[in-house]
Structure formats: structure tokens, C-alpha cells
């Protein structure tokens, strides 16, 4: 017999019982094996006693009922071959296999992979349920809320109180153990955990019930209260939590532009052709353009169109993600600049240098004395601000973005926005200037520039200017008090020679004569060098140089120079911007300076800057 034949051949068991029973059992066995000829060897071949009895009765021409009992006895006598199972007396099933015996397979469920996976013997501490419940969701709608099995709930860091106390909320974010205890004790003063994963914190309070949620800030909100009450009391905290959740959503299902939100899948896309057309349009206009103009001129869309609002959002959102476009608008006026537009503002100083000059405004709030004479609230309510120009501001057409300016000018609309472009109109001369407002960063100050032409044309250092808001948030006006005309020899900067000199000027604007750098006022400013930006950046070296140049020599053993605060302020502000408060604070701490009341004395160190070269040229 070949192996192949053996595959189709049944085993030959030994039979028990009387001869008749043995014969009957063998017949049944052959019959069942024939029925399951193509079954695998160990798969049971089942047949009911009724069917078997009917078959034998028909074969032997006998009574089926009599055969049934006889057959049952014969098969039971050979229970090593046939397995009997009976639901009741009427329904008896016999099973065997081609191997000649059948035993019910036993499935071992004592130790399963599933059980090990979901119910480990020694589970790791659950600091963060996010490691168990994935935050990455499929794009399709999911059933809410996310189901968390009792197993993990019971093993959350704060176990249910055995004495029948409150049930803990779910821990979702790694929180220091000490912090958890504090939160549990005083939820009102709990430290914000910072991220939305902590939206449901581990705080346990007695107030907790089935309708109370805990915000990331640790505040409990009972949703059983009216919606209006919740909004009034917890609206800010909830808004922050939602904003954070939207920003953290890995699927970015809701996207934002400024203070507006919309589902990402409903935001239309812009093709490369669209982007090219928009860029060409902006370049053709020669200046940043509002989104509404782009919509009307490029897409022929008007506010009457049903999709105007959504398309406008899409335009802003998509352009903001393109490197060839930069948002330069303000709240209420969304302006877009494109790569290739001419730069706004002075080119005589790099933006990095200007940022460093004004860095002191962000270093310490006490250095900024722009609100010493007027409060921010007054500026906001008046919607205008007046100030005197320093020589530096006049020379480069810049203005500091100090606390007073921050109170007046619009804040950035986007969190990562670097600049805004403002239109400043001079109604006295019917001229308009594009001005770039550079917002401060962590280590650089902010400023406005682009008014060089206006300042040089109509004003002098020391002039009083007034900036006023208009109905358009991106348009401002600049004005000054006109006078009959005044002559004077005023300081000017000679970039070719790198020095300052005096020249005749006739000006027609209101000035503070104390701030006008005239020859009468400070004749020693003449021939002072224009310090390189690297030296100007350091306030002490600039002030020291200015003191050496225009200060009075101080008699005594040590060579020193002294100057009053007013003159020092003017002299330093020829070279770089500085407030009086900044000068006083920094020079007071420097070992080379001595400050007596409002008089500054400078003792140059021996290795300090050499004295300025003598210049024989006379004006």
C-alpha cells in the first residue's frame, strides 16, 4: 500500500461486544468512513442514530425501532470508536473519524495572548492614558465617546475610593505626582497642565459628578448649568482648550486663519496656476493687496456670492501656507505681499541692526518710558499719539514700536506674523507712505520704517508729529504743527564721510527746541563719527564715545567727561535709539560711568576707543 493510498484508507479498529454487535459496529464504521471519505483524518464524521437505524433497517428489511436500540447498544459497546452525544433521548449523535476514534478537542483558555495583551500581570504604571488610547483617529467618523474599558479605568493612577468616595477622572497627561496631589486638594488653584491631552485631568474633587468635566486649567465645569452661564463663567478657559485641541489635532480637521475657523475638508485648494495669477496680480499692483481685492480682481467674486466667505477663508488659509506669499495685514484688513515686491523702509540699515537697536524695549519694561506722560488707555481712547522725533528717527525714517505705539497700532493677526504693512497718509501734503511695522521677537525690538522721505522733506529732528487712526485699520494719518518758518544750522549725517556736520535748514514745523540738534545747542556734535552698527549696538560704548566727543572735560587726576542727561540723550540718539530710562539704568550699572543726579561722568578705560581723529576740514 502506497502512502497516497493510505491517505484515503480508514483505520481498522478492534471491535467489542457480541459478534452481532461487532458486525453492526463495523458496518456503521464503514458507512461513516465512506460518508467522510474526503474529510481530513481527524475531523469528526457525525451521524444521528435515527439516520443510521433507518439505513440499517432498510438494508436488512427490519423494523427501524428495533434496529435503533440494537444499534445504540452496539455502538455504545464500542465507545472507543464512536463518541456518543445526546441532547435528549430522541436526538443521539455518534461521531468518529477516519482514524478510528474521536475525542473532543480541548481548547486551552487558561493562558492566551489576548489576555496577556489586555490584562498584563504586572502592568506598567499608567501615567498617560494616551499611550493606551490612541489619539490618532481614522478619517471616518468614529463613535463617541472613546470607549475605555473598566480594566483600565480601574487602574488609572487615582484608584476609586474604597470608602465610597468620588470616582477619579481619567489621567491623560504625565503630571508630577506632587502636582496631582495639589490638584486633588485645591482644584481652583491647580497649575495648568498645558496641553489638551490633559483635558481630563486626574483631579478628584468632591464636586465631581456625572455631569462635571475638568478643564486643562483644573477648573471643574458642571454641564448641568445653563449653556449661557457656562459660556460667561468658563468661556475663556473652554475657548483656550478648544483652540489648543484644534491646533494639536493630528488630522487637522479644523483649520484656522486668524480668529476664524473652518473644516479643512471644506476649504477649497488653490492650484499652482491660481498662485501664479495671484502673485502676478500683486506684483502688478506694486504693493501688498487686500484679500478682497484679490477675490474681486482675480476671481471676480463679490460679497454677494454665496461662497464668498468660505472662498475668502480658503484664499487666506492657503496663501499663508505658501512660501512665496507673506501675510502683512492687521485685524480687519488682510493684506498679502508676494515675493518680488520692493522692500519697504530704509535700506541704509539692515533689519537685524534695527532689531538689535530696539532690543532694549523688550529686554526690560522699565527701559520703555513712552507711557510716562500718557497712559495706554488714553492712547486707545484718543486713537492718536504725539511724539517728538529724535535725530536717529528723523535720519532713517523710523519710529520705535514701544509701549505707546503698541497701544495705538494694531497687534499681529497671526501668532507667527513678522510684519504688517500700514498706509500712512499725510493730509497736509496729500501724500501716502507705505510703512512696515516690524513686530518684536524674543531678542529683537520692533519698529516702523518707511517715513524717511516724509521726515526729510517736511520735518527736522525735534519735530512734534501726531499719528492718528482712521476707519480703515491699515490706514493711519501723520500730521505736524505748521509754522511760519525758522532758520537754523542743524545736524546732518554725511554717509560718504561717515561723520556728522551742520548745515543750514529752514523748517516749518513745531519743534521742541531742546531736542533740535542745532549748532547753537551742541556745537561739538560736528565731526562726530558715525559709529559702525556693531559699536552702536552697545549702549555703553556709544554713550562713552558721545561723552568723549561732546562732554565737558572733568578736571582731576583721572581724565573724565561729563554731560547732562538732556545733552547725552540727544547725543546718543544721534547714533542710535535709546530712552532716558534705558540710559540711566544701564550707565548706572557700568563701572566706567558715574551718575550724579542727572549728570553722567565717563572715565574711558585705557584700552577703550582711541579719541576721534582730528579733522581739519572746516565747514
Amino acid at each position, binding site marked *: 500500500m502506497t502512502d497516497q493510498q493510505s491517505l484515503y484508507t480508514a483505520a481498522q479498529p478492534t471491535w467489542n461486544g457480541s459478534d452481532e454487535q461487532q458486525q453492526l459496529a463495523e458496518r456503521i464504521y464503514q458507512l461513516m468512513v465512506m460518508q467522510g471519505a474526503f474529510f481530513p483524518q481527524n475531523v469528526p464524521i457525525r451521524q444521528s442514530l435515527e439516520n443510521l437505524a433507518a439505513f440499517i433497517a432498510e438494508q436488512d428489511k427490519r423494523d427501524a425501532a428495533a434496529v435503533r436500540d440494537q444499534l445504540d447498544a452496539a455502538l455504545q459497546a464500542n465507545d472507543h470508536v464512536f463518541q456518543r452525544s445526546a441532547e435528549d433521548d430522541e436526538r443521539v449523535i455518534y461521531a468518529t473519524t477516519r482514524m478510528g476514534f474521536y475525542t473532543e478537542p480541548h481548547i486551552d483558555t487558561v493562558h492566551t495572548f489576548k489576555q496577556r495583551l489586555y490584562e498584563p500581570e504586572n502592568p506598567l504604571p499608567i501615567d498617560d492614558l494616551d499611550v493606551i488610547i490612541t489619539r490618532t483617529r481614522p478619517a471616518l467618523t468614529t463613535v463617541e465617546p472613546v470607549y475605555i474599558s473598566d480594566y483600565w479605568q480601574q487602574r488609572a493612577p487615582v484608584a476609586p475610593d474604597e470608602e465610597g468616595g468620588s470616582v477619579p477622572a481619567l489621567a491623560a497627561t504625565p503630571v508630577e505626582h506632587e502636582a496631582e496631589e495639589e490638584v486633588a486638594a485645591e482644584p481652583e488653584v491647580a497649575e495648568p497642565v498645558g496641553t489638551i491631552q490633559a483635558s481630563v485631568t486626574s483631579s478628584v474633587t468632591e464636586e465631581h*459628578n456625572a455631569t462635571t468635566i475638568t478643564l486643562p486649567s483644573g477648573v471643574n465645569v458642571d454641564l448641568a448649568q445653563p449653556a449661557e452661564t457656562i459660556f460667561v463663567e468658563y468661556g475663556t478657559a473652554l475657548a483656550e482648550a478648544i483652540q489648543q485641541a484644534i491646533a494639536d489635532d493630528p488630522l487637522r480637521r479644523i483649520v484656522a486663519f486668524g480668529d476664524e475657523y473652518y473644516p479643512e475638508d471644506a476649504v477649497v485648494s488653490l492650484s499652482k496656476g491660481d498662485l501664479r495669477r495671484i502673485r502676478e496680480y500683486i506684483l502688478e499692483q506694486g504693493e501688498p493687496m487686500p484679500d478682497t481685492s484679490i477675490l474681486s480682481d482675480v476671481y471676480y467674486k463679490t460679497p454677494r456670492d454665496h461662497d464668498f*466667505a468660505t472662498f475668502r477663508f480658503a484664499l487666506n488659509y492657503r496663501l499663508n501656507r505658501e512660501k512665496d506669499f507673506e501675510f502683512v495685514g492687521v485685524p480687519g484688513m488682510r493684506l498679502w505681499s508676494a515675493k518680488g515686491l520692493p522692500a519697504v523702509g530704509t535700506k541704509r540699515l539692515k533689519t537685524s541692526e534695527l532689531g538689535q537697536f530696539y532690543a532694549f524695549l523688550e529686554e526690560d519694561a522699565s527701559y520703555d518710558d513712552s507711557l510716562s506722560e500718557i497712559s495706554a488707555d488714553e492712547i486707545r481712547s484718543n486713537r492718536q499719539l504725539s511724539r517728538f522725533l529724535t535725530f536717529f528717527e528723523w535720519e532713517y525714517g523710523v519710529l520705535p514700536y514701544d509701549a505707546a505705539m503698541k497701544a495705538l497700532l494694531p497687534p499681529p493677526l497671526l501668532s507667527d506674523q513678522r510684519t504688517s504693512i500700514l498706509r500712512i497718509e499725510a493730509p497736509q501734503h496729500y501724500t501716502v507712505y507705505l510703512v512696515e511695522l516690524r513686530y518684536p521677537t524674543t531678542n529683537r525690538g520692533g519698529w516702523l520704517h518707511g517715513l524717511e522721505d516724509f521726515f526729510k522733506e517736511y520735518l527736522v529732528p525735534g519735530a512734534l508729529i501726531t499719528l492718528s487712526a482712521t476707519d480703515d485699520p491699515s490706514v493711519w494719518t501723520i500730521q505736524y504743527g505748521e509754522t511760519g518758518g525758522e532758520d537754523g544750522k542743524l545736524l546732518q549725517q554725511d554717509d560718504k564721510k561717515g561723520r556728522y556736520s551742520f548745515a543750514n535748514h529752514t523748517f516749518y514745523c513745531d519743534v521742541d527746541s531742546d531736542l533740535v540738534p542745532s549748532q547753537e545747542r551742541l556745537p561739538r556734535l560736528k565731526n562726530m563719527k558715525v559709529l559702525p552698527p556693531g559699536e552702536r549696538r552697545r549702549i555703553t560704548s556709544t554713550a562713552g564715545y558721545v561723552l568723549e566727543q561732546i562732554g565737558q572735560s572733568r578736571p582731576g587726576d583721572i581724565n573724565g567727561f561729563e554731560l547732562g542727561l538732556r545733552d547725552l540723550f540727544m547725543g546718543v540718539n544721534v547714533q542710535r535709539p535709546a530712552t532716558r530710562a534705558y540710559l540711566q539704568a544701564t550707565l548706572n550699572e557700568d563701572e566706567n560711568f558715574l551718575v550724579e543726579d542727572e549728570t553722567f561722568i565717563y572715565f574711558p578705560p585705557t584700552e577703550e576707543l582711541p579719541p576721534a581723529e582730528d579733522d581739519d576740514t572746516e565747514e
Partner: protein
Amino acid sequence: MPIDARTIRVGETGLERLIQWLRATNQPQTLEAITAKYIEILRSLVLEEEER
């Protein structure tokens, strides 16, 4: 079926409903409007049974 407020994850639970509402409004919404709507959604999830 109302849910237990303790299982609510602010910013995740009910977000799909919020998105559906946002889409249905057919125009971008401010954070303030979204917050007001989200409060309504959370309340409806938690108080469904009681209100009924």
C-alpha cells in the same frame, strides 16, 4: 445614550459634531461662536437622558 462627563475629553469628544455644525453654517466661525456651540454639544451629550 448619555455619556459620563468623566469620559469627556475636551476638544475631542463631540468634535465631529462640531465639525458638522461648522460645515453646515457654510462660513468660517470665530472661536467665540465655536466655544458656544461646543458647550451646547457637550451639554447635549451629558444631559440627553435627563432632558428627555
